[in-house]
């Protein structure tokens, strides 16, 4: 989960891909255990920590004396949290997985993952385009 040397936004996208991957794993685990008695559905929380780290909503990112240091510290500090989803309704055997909700979350995670990859492609493409002075390389 490290920032790339390029650009804090590409570092943020990298972190986002890691976190979405983790979310996909948790959802797969829930789906696989949809019939296991006593299994509690799990969920991942990272979005508010990520928002703080990126300074979205006007929240300031972690302060530092040297302004050029801010960019490198931000997204490394985001630690995802896996917890038992309190919204799950217990069925007779103690299982709290709701299949349709998990399928919806799966589709959303995949879409946001793909969106992050597309953004990264474009950002890297612009970078390569600028490096190659508009001739040949890049998208």
């Amino acid at each position, binding site marked *: 989960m490290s920032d790339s040397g390029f650009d804090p936004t590409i570092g943020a996208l990298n972190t986002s891909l890691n976190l979405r991957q983790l979310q996909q794993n948790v959802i797969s685990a829930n789906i696989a255990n949809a019939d296991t008695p006593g299994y509690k559905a799990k969920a991942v929380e990272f979005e508010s920590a990520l928002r703080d780290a990126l300074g979205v909503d006007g929240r300031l990112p972690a302060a530092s004396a040297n302004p050029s240091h801010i960019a490198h510290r931000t997204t490394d500090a985001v630690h995802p949290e896996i917890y038992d989803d309190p919204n799950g309704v217990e069925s007779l055997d103690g299982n709290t997985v709701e299949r349709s909700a998990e399928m919806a979350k799966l589709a959303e995670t995949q879409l946001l993952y793909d969106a992050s990859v597309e953004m990264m492609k*474009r950002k890297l*493409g612009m970078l390569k385009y600028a490096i190659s002075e*508009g001739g040949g390389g890049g998208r």
Partner: protein
Amino acid sequence: MSNNLTIENLTRSVETGDVERFMGGGAGGATSSESRVMREMQSNGMDAGGAGGLTPDASKTFSAVLHDSFAKVNQNQVDADRAIKELVSGRTKNVHETMLAVERADASLKLMMQVRNKVLDAYREIMRMQV
């Protein structure tokens, strides 16, 4: 394209800030699509010319025009970065807005790059002239 690079055209363009004439707008071939895009960008606010987009603004020098354009391109990049951060952190779920912001940044960068290349070509052409 070379017929537009007469000394007369160049000096007039530099004085009036009319980048379009400089770019060979109106002539056929590869440059006309760029000038069309240039006109689009002008009307979208890049403002290389005057308020209407096509009339040359006598008060702005060419370097000021370029300076403004660079600032706008940079602003587009900053906006695209902000849109990406908002999508990634779940602040907005509108993927299309983010895609638009990124594509706008991409297009303005490409346009600026082409303008830069043309300017450099013109400069080299001038430097090659025997005095």
